């Protein structure tokens, strides 16, 4: 298949250009400040502290999520743990709970849960599903004939796992860890509450100071560099081995590994994990509902906010997925310097705090497309910039497993590039696209800052309605919104587990 597919290149470039808007805002701010002042603002002890804090948290939480996510995926997919499918669904469910709600909950249950340890615990509990889901999908979908062949060739079960299974898991683990890292770089609400300063919390602090716009931009520029480091590490770690195959493999049911005497301790361990990741936030929200005197539910307001959150989430999920499809296609099918540049660029928005992305769009939109300012399309654009990587990581992983020979065959049979994409590639990608779209939906339904600045005036979402009362100590009034946020996220989280159960192969 040699067609240039110009439309795909155009859409992919557009996606990359959108992601460059906030980066451009940061770069221009740095230039305006001038080199001398910029060095003064960046080269000071506080920035060193933030650098250490941010780096340590990204490394520690990513490692914890890799270990925990891989372990939960293995125990639910490959062992005879009683009720494995139920546990599998429960391990995806933390995605339905916004990190800042989780953080509120932990602080109210364990008052000492702050600083580094608190941040590590809360972010790991919130983000390990990012690793669990793709790893579980690969474990379930991968053809175990490879392992059998390895065993037949004389490898021990352990050696077969290390030399055959782990390499197959590598793209999934690395992709999941990249999402965890990007989320940590941009996380504000959860970390602010836990008194763990990172670049993003410091950027918010700077914007709260009257004249500190330049200082915030300097911190954001360091954040952009950190993001580039993460993306480079991701490329180096993901590997280039071919993962796709044309044959579907044998559809035999396999015996699961018996846990034997470890069954009881394993059940206790997964039970404790679920209690920590789901029990703590759910119990806290329930307690706010009951004890807060300000708990008054206005059904009409709640219904409108719920409908708005769901509507914005669905549209943003569809648009973001459509926008990233060509990017993923270029990255996998037309690898090269340009494709890599486009693909990496679309990740930048996800690592920048919402306030930076939102202010950049305010400045650009009100001057370039004033008619679109504070309209839904601009808000959707902001969501796309912020959350493209969520869709991209899943699409890329799915596309890696689609053999290019199928597209080549369709092309050879006379289909035009557009028809090949629509009739061959997209249907094969549907599950990966669905998973990506579900992640975007989850992220949008809890997004706050960009929504506050860019939504049409008067728009109320569950997240904006939660923050107002929560910031004013009226936890009772905030609780119904927190609960509804969790409830509307359940279908998306469920969709993510179905993706696992359906397997990743064709």
């Amino acid at each position, binding site marked *: 298949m040699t067609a240039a597919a110009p439309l795909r290149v155009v859409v992919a470039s557009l996606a990359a250009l959108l992601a460059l808007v906030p980066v451009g805002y940061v770069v221009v701010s740095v230039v305006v400040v001038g080199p001398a002042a910029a060095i003064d603002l960046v080269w000071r002890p506080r920035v060193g502290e933030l650098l250490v804090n941010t780096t340590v948290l990204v490394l520690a939480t990513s490692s914890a999520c890799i270990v925990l996510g891989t372990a939960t995926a293995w125990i639910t997919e490959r062992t005879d743990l009683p009720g494995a499918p139920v546990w599998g669904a429960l391990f995806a469910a933390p995605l339905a709970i916004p990190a800042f709600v989780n953080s509120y909950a932990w602080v109210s249950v364990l008052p000492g849960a702050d600083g580094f340890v608190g941040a590590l615990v809360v972010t790991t509990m919130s983000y390990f599903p990012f690793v669990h889901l793709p790893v579980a999908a690969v474990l379930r979908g991968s053809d175990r004939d490879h392992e059998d062949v390895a065993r037949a060739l004389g490898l021990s079960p352990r050696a077969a796992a290390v030399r055959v299974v782990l390499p197959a898991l590598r793209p999934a683990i690395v992709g999941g860890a990249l999402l965890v890292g990007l989320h940590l770089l941009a996380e504000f609400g959860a970390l602010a509450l836990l008194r763990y300063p990172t670049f993003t919390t410091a950027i*918010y602090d700077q914007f709260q100071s009257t004249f500190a716009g330049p*200082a915030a931009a300097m911190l954001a520029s360091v954040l952009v560099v950190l993001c580039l480091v993460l993306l480079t590490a991701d490329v180096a770690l993901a590997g280039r081995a071919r993962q796709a195959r044309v044959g579907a493999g044998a559809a035999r049911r396999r015996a699961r590994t018996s846990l034997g005497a470890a069954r009881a301790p394993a059940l206790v361990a997964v039970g404790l994990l679920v209690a920590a990741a789901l029990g703590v936030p759910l119990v806290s929200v329930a307690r706010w509902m009951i004890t807060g005197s300000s708990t008054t539910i206005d059904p009409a307001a709640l219904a409108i906010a719920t409908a708005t959150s769901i509507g914005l989430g669905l549209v943003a999920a569809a648009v973001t997925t459509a926008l990233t499809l060509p990017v993923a296609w270029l990255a996998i099918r037309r690898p090269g310097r340009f494709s890599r540049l486009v693909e990496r660029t679309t990740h930048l928005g996800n690592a920048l705090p919402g306030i930076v992305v939102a202010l950049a769009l305010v400045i650009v939109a*009100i001057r370039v497309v004033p008619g679109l300012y504070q309209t839904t*399309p601009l808000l959707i654009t902001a969501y796309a910039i912020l959350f493209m990587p969520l869709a991209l990581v899943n699409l890329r992983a799915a596309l890696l497993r689609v053999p290019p020979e199928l597209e080549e065959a369709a092309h050879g049979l006379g289909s035009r590039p557009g028809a090949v994409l629509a009739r061959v590639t997209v249907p094969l990608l549907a599950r990966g696209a669905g998973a990506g779209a579900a992640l975007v939906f989850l992220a949008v339904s809890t997004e706050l800052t960009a929504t506050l600045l860019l939504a049409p005036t008067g728009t109320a979402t569950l997240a904006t309605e939660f923050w107002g009362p929560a910031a004013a100590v009226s936890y009772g009034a905030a609780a119904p919104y927190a609960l509804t946020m969790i409830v509307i996220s359940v279908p998306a989280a469920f969709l993510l587990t179905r993706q696992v159960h359906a397997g990743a192969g064709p």
Partner: protein
Amino acid sequence: MPVPGQGVWFVRMVLAVLASTVLLAACGGAPGPEDRTLTLYNAQHEALGRLWVDEFTRQTGIPVQIRDGGDFELGNQLVAEGAASPADVFLTENSPAMSLVSGANLFAPVDGATRAQVPPQYSSTRGDWVGIAARTTVVVYNPALLPEGQLPDSILDFARPEWQGRVAFPPGGADFQAIVSAVNALNGDAATQQWLAGLKANGRVYQSNTATMQAVNRGEVPAGIIYHYYWYQDRAEAGANSANTELKFYTNGDAGGFLSVSGGGVLASSSRPAEAQQLLAFLAGVPGQQVLARSENLEYTVGAGVPANPALKPFSELRPPPVDLSTLNGPKIVGMMQQAGLL
């Protein structure tokens, strides 16, 4: 294997969603010229903003649409928007965000009659915004850990070594930066820098007034520096975050009694300046101040001689130190806090 046509269906669906979004946006388009609807950028607490606007609309028939946000979000947004801003009126929780917008020359002068409603020390010296509410600095303390008699006579004393690990404060917010600038205005540069260095060494940093108060309530730390009304609101709620604490008011002229003012202003770019001035006159005048006094917000009233909510310590007993609000939170304060490693 794929069913033929399935992909085409997917592409069509995406296109349909895109098209309907654009259509929806077009329908919600710009108001006609006869539309008197005001746009309020509200950084005050949402509930209070809503109470004010509902009463204003009831009295005048002028509809108001509200965009809620924090001081810094909306203030920075107004500066980024510049002359193209769709906002007519801006309300904040603290004066520094008003100074930010005022410094960018984005406010119109406030009507003289409205300015006359508010004592001059609670409004901008440039006459481009007025005070609409006020909050006083207090020290919240846990009597089980720290008897009232052991509290210092000045918040400057928290920098002393005996307070190591025993004082909480939220340096990140506009709230605390206003308190630092009051310390600076009253005690000078050297004392302020020394105080900040002491707080960096001794103090436990929290994200917000509420988090500071919760920490004191839990006994994590015996004392904290916050604004009064977070405590009163929590007491009015269920007391879950304040039941074990009391407040110390500084009425001796110390910076610990600093009074921070919430401001309101009309944007110079407003397309409905007459109605916008009418809204501001309402807020600073008797009707708006009465709404505030009756609300659960529990900030002090500042305009038209309307007394504050009776649950509060009487305003006349506060005796805050004299501080020029227009000097607050300048680049110097931010620089000092950066130098101390607090920002």
